[in-house]
């Protein structure tokens, strides 16, 4: 009797053993990466460049056999540049797709809303384009390789002041976006520290298309340059309208200016704009040249800083993963990655990279920022070149 019972259960036993075998091989074969980026909406130019950078890196790594033999699988969700969608995208990637690590979101504004979710779920969220102040302070699972405005803007401003002999500036910024506001705060402190007078400070809201009133007011103050903490879409419109009012001042910009979209819209009107970035198209180092060539081949377009940082970010994560043995337990693996990331030293398209721990606030552990030098660029003839 007992043997008969055992025999009837045998197929079940064999099946489950087989399935277990299958299951364990499936977990070992794929490393799930998630990304929530703005693929549509006003921030789409940044988001699609980021997606391209991420995808290129994943493909290259997989072509070389993956990480420790495991292939990377990238799932990209569209967060449309909106806070609510970023939160939804994060939740889906973390709880439904069960990713190991999360890239994004595109805008700092969305990061303030969505990163706390990743942090609370103990999943590393890796920002490649968030430069506002305070994002890494969200928690120890927040990492970014995008250099903060606080690190870049003083360098940019100093170089611009020297280059143009600037004594006074007008300032313009968007007062309803975390990134532009953070940039403004840094600019304000920088200008004060460098003893540059501010003739007037004007604001606008995201989505505004008419800036003539603010610009006319700025014109009356006769500044030597206009400092703009803006996203690319508004920045381009502002530049165009400035020129149409007959103003010739150069612009000094933050990370938002770092996109070819600026030139698509503003074209030559944007000449003499100064901005800082850890990546430069003119950097002839082998890692960067290889990246640029591969990007051009795959996408038939030149990469920008957003693509470069996203590309490097994947490689940084891959470096960290090399030293980990994945157990198949999602919580454990996520923690292992979290512990391995800070120690990564990597040289990529954006040059030498290490993480820097952000100072803790109110006794709360903070995450990690990028520790990289900013290069100052100036716009000439529709692209950014090094400012010497």
């Amino acid at each position: 009797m007992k043997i008969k019972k055992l025999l009837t259960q045998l197929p079940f036993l064999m099946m489950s053993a087989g399935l277990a075998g299958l299951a364990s091989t499936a977990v070992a074969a794929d490393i799930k990466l998630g990304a929530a980026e703005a693929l549509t909406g006003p921030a789409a130019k940044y988001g699609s460049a980021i997606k391209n950078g991420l995808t290129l890196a994943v493909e290259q790594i997989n072509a070389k056999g993956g990480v420790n033999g495991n292939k990377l699988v990238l799932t990209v969700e569209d967060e449309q540049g909106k806070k609510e969608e970023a939160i939804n995208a994060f939740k889906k990637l973390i709880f439904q797709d069960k990713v190991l690590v999360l890239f994004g979101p595109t805008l700092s504004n969305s990061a303030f809303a969505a990163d706390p979710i990743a942090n609370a779920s103990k999943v590393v969220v890796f920002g490649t384009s968030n430069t506002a102040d305070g994002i890494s302070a969200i928690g120890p699972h927040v990492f970014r390789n995008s250099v903060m405005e606080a690190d870049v803007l003083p360098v940019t401003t100093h170089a611009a002041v020297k280059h143009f002999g600037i004594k006074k500036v007008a300032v313009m910024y968007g007062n309803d976006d975390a990134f532009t506001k953070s940039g403004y705060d840094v600019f304000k402190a920088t200008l004060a520290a460098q003893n540059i007078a501010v003739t007037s400070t004007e604001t606008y809201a995201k989505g505004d298309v008419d800036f003539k009133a603010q610009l006319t007011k700025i014109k009356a103050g006769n500044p030597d340059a206009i400092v703009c903490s803006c996203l690319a879409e508004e920045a381009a419109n502002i530049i165009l309208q400035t020129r149409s009012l007959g103003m010739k001042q150069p612009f000094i910009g933050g990370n938002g200016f770092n996109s070819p979209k600026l030139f698509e819209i503003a074209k030559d009107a944007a000449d003499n704009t100064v901005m800082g970035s850890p990546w430069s198209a003119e950097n002839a180092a082998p890692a960067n040249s290889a990246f640029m060539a591969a990007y051009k081949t795959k996408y038939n377009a030149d990469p920008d800083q957003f693509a470069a940082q996203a590309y490097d970010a994947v490689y940084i994560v891959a470096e960290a993963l090399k030293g980990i043995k994945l157990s198949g337990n999602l919580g454990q693996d996520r923690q292992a990655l979290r512990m391995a990331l800070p120690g990564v030293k990597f040289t990529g398209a954006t040059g030498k990279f290490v993480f820097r721990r952000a100072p803790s606030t109110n006794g709360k552990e903070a995450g990690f920022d990028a520790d990289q030098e900013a290069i100052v660029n100036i716009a000439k003839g529709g692209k950014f070149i090094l400012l010497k």
Partner: protein
Amino acid sequence: MLEQQLINALSLGSVYALFALGFTLVFGVLGVINLSHGAIFMLGSYAALLLVEQLALPLWLAMLTAMLAAGCLGLLIDFLVLRPLRKRNAPHLAPMIATIGVAIMLTNLAQGLFGAANQRFPVGTIPEDSFTVKDMHVTEVQIGIVLISFGLMVMLLAVMRRTQLGRALRAIAESPKAAYLLGVNVEGLFFLTSFTAAALGGAAGVLVGLSFNAISPFMGQPMLHKGIAVIILGGMGDIRGALIGGLFLGFAEVMTIAYISSDLRDAVAFGLLFLILLVRPSGMFGKVLERKA
């Protein structure tokens, strides 16, 4: 600086006024607050963009055609949505709610068809010339907006005051049932009004699209909000009110930015609106509603 700001205010105000013209026309004659006017405005802009991009039409022709297209869209909305509600004697607010649905649908449609990113007219389409008098810069497009807005308003007023058609429309505005009894072709004139109002909205869309060169499926929303404020300020249903109200809002916004603070732009503009309404609740030119025993 003041002169330049006045020019800025005039062109911004004319844009608001043009948008509000169509809006107020529908309210005046049909008694409906057409909240899809913003979506029609947006689609007018896209229509002009497509005509210029795909068919390489000259700008003036593209604008006229876009107006026609917008007008037909307005007609379609009236026939499919507003007319059935009229036939069933729907409660007062039902058409307004229905047009909210139409607006959402059209916006989503545009997003699906054209994508959510801002689109621009091809390089060279928009007249780039500007005139410089002393220290003031006026662009051709700004002049165009002011002239076209005022021109259309004058035409509308002339039709309303001096023609049989206008008289019929005014009769309907007062009481559709009485007008019907007097032999006025009420349904036909409702269609004509919807068509005309939508065409005006489309014209506004094209002009705004040219002016700021940023066409997106969401460009109608902020305009609609301002448009509602304008027609309430000017008196709902009154054409002069739409124009004066639009100019007033434009001036209030620009002057706030220029002399107070750009941060407080909307707060001051709408605060003033509120104050005016406190003094004259039915708007500047609105008819004071009396209760008839």
